[in-house]
């Protein structure tokens, strides 16, 4: 599905990713944890194709093609989805209208027929249930005036609508209340299939009780410095990151 080799990236002249290696196979759920500023969102942005992030070395292959050569919209159309840490507001554009455009662009790219309003509404109603989203939200402008938690839930709703192959969730659990956390996790779990993969960026082990990962990685100073199973998350919860930092210091 996704294969990252020795990825190096900088933003505004500052090197952030320092030779990152990472492999995701179909159906897998990977959790990425790591201290603030270690480069987790940067990795997500680089994968999604954000222009400010300059890739200075390494390669990324997604479903067999060179991801770094693709435009952001082509990456999305190919099935890469990013649930943003800070979702953006688009005043005056209804969620429904926005999603209809997005869904149909992606369908076009897949060679599928464009959904008419009726079919789209049907799909939307179905997916709304999945994340227990209120109908009124679809008529509101994209993320405008949404609470922090509503924005996050909206990201998962969009993910459900677009049915991506690889979803990257950047701290989707931050700002969610306990019920919302469960709902969002259920949404993600409902989408889990043998051919869909997830990268879940989080600071909290708790999310991983709901979305059970196959692997847990620690990103530190722009590199994956430790990988393990979900037990690693428990260990981190307990001990923090210092012991890992020390390990690295010793190793260096």
């Amino acid at each position: 599905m996704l294969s990252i080799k020795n990825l190096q990236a900088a933003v505004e002249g500052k090197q952030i990713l320092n030779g990152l290696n990472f492999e995701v196979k179909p159906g897998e759920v990977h959790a990425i944890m790591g201290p603030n500023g270690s480069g987790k969102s940067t990795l997500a942005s680089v994968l999604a194709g954000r222009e400010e992030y300059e890739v200075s070395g390494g390669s990324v292959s997604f479903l067999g093609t060179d991801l770094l050569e693709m435009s952001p919209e082509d990456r999305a159309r190919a099935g890469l989805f990013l649930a943003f840490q800070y979702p953006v507001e688009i005043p005056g554009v209804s969620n429904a209208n926005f999603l209809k455009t997005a869904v149909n662009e992606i369908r076009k790219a897949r060679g599928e027929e464009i959904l008419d309003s009726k079919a789209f509404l049907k799909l939307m109603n179905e997916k709304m249930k999945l994340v227990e989203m209120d109908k009124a939200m679809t008529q509101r402008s994209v993320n405008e005036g949404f609470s922090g938690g509503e924005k996050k839930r909206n990201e998962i709703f969009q993910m459900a609508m677009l049915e991506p192959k690889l979803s990257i969730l950047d701290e989707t659990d931050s700002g969610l209340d306990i019920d919302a956390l469960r709902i969002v996790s259920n949404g993600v779990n409902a989408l889990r299939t043998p051919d869909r993969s997830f990268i879940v960026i989080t600071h909290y082990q708790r999310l991983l009780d709901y979305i059970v990962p196959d692997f847990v990685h620690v990103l530190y100073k722009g590199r994956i410095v430790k990988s393990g199973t979900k037990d690693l998350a428990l260990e981190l919860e307990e001990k923090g990151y210092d012991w890992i930092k020390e390990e690295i210091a010793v190793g260096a």
Partner: protein
Amino acid sequence: MSEDLKILDEVTNSDYKWGFVSNIESDNAPKGLNEDIVRFISLKKSEPEWLLQWRLKAFRHWLTMTEPKWPNVSYPEIDFQDIIYYSAPKKKPTLNSLDELDPEIKATFDKLGISLIEQQRLAGVAVDAVIDSVSVKTTFRETLAELGIIFCSFSEAVHDHPELIKKYLGSVVPYTDNFYAALNSAVFSDGSFCYIPKGVRCPMELSTYFRINSAGTGQFERTLIVAEEGAQVSYLEGCTAPMRDENQLHAAVVEIVSHTDANVKYSTVQNWYPGDKNGKGGIYNFVTKRGICLGDRAKISWTQVETGSAITWKYPSVILKGDYSIGEFYSVAVTNNMQQADTGTKMIHLGKNTRSVIVSKGISCGRSQNSYRGLVKIGKNASYARNFSQCDSLLIGDKCGAHTFPYLEVANKTAKVEHEATTSKVGEDQIFYCNQRGISTEDAVNLIVNGYCKEVFNQLPMEFAVEAQKLLSISLEGSVG
């Protein structure tokens, strides 16, 4: 004697050159403007003497005036003697088939979803007579006539309803109003007249298509709308013009009279040729639009979507004379490339408890300049008058400019006036967010800009709103690198 007065004197004292009349069969007036030309136009249209006299007065007044220099636009001096002020409709096709049409215009028509028949008409291909300065498309006339609604060309109205024209012509925009209004009053070619009798609610949107065809022909339309007590009408004005090389002057006048409890809604989608990417060619659009709410609870609402013209100079205004009368102005003005727009409104509150709303959305891209200029004036008798103004500017790219010039004159302490203004940029964050959902940058900008304009588009009749959105997309083309 000043130069102006000398000219005035010469002109007013010179004899009418009858020799000119032998040319009455010609399709076009010769270039230039003098009293003979004014008489020629009037004669061509077999107008009554009073109208000729009115035109002449306007012309003489125009001679004493100078072009306004206060708008935030710049353009080479217009040579008013280098313009043809009258051209009859041409029956001959300019093209034999659509294949001969400039491919860029054809592409625009296609994007707008204009039917082939309509395209042929617009492009001047045979089939129908091509419409020029004269005449107006008057559809559904019979249905309207049954209700006593008059909807016809201005020239027809002059002959068929002289009492109404005499009563209302110049009553809202007198020829002394401004330079271009005076010019229009002297040489106006044609336009529309619309009259809704007492208590009648016009059952359909009234629409006209104006077009500019002959190269080098100034276009001076005159529109007059009168809604009697309790009447209601929604009027649409839309236009499109083909690509051309020469700057063209357009100076229309629109007058609206709304009596007690009457409601007039006037919507415009303006899409004239804006000139090429370097600003060459394009239409100069100097328009005077004004309505008066004469009676109590009268309402006038202007909605405009301005995407075309090289230069736009336009301030649809409302005089709120009747108590509790309402004036509204909703505007989207897009400028791209080298376009310049100085547009806005004037709300003149005279009556008590009068209310006005101004929503202006300016969008600038390329190297264009987009100015909002608005006046809210509250007279001393306008107790409890209220105004709310929202003026937003959206910038796309960093070579364009947005400017806001709000003027406020309040002479009554009980009045309440609110003004909000914002300037924003189409954010890279927003574009990236859309990209990440599979939406291309161009579509993303369209989506974002359409969202930004929603409040105004919501005011437009349905079909018009769709057209406006398409126009917007076309105007924004190439605005993001």
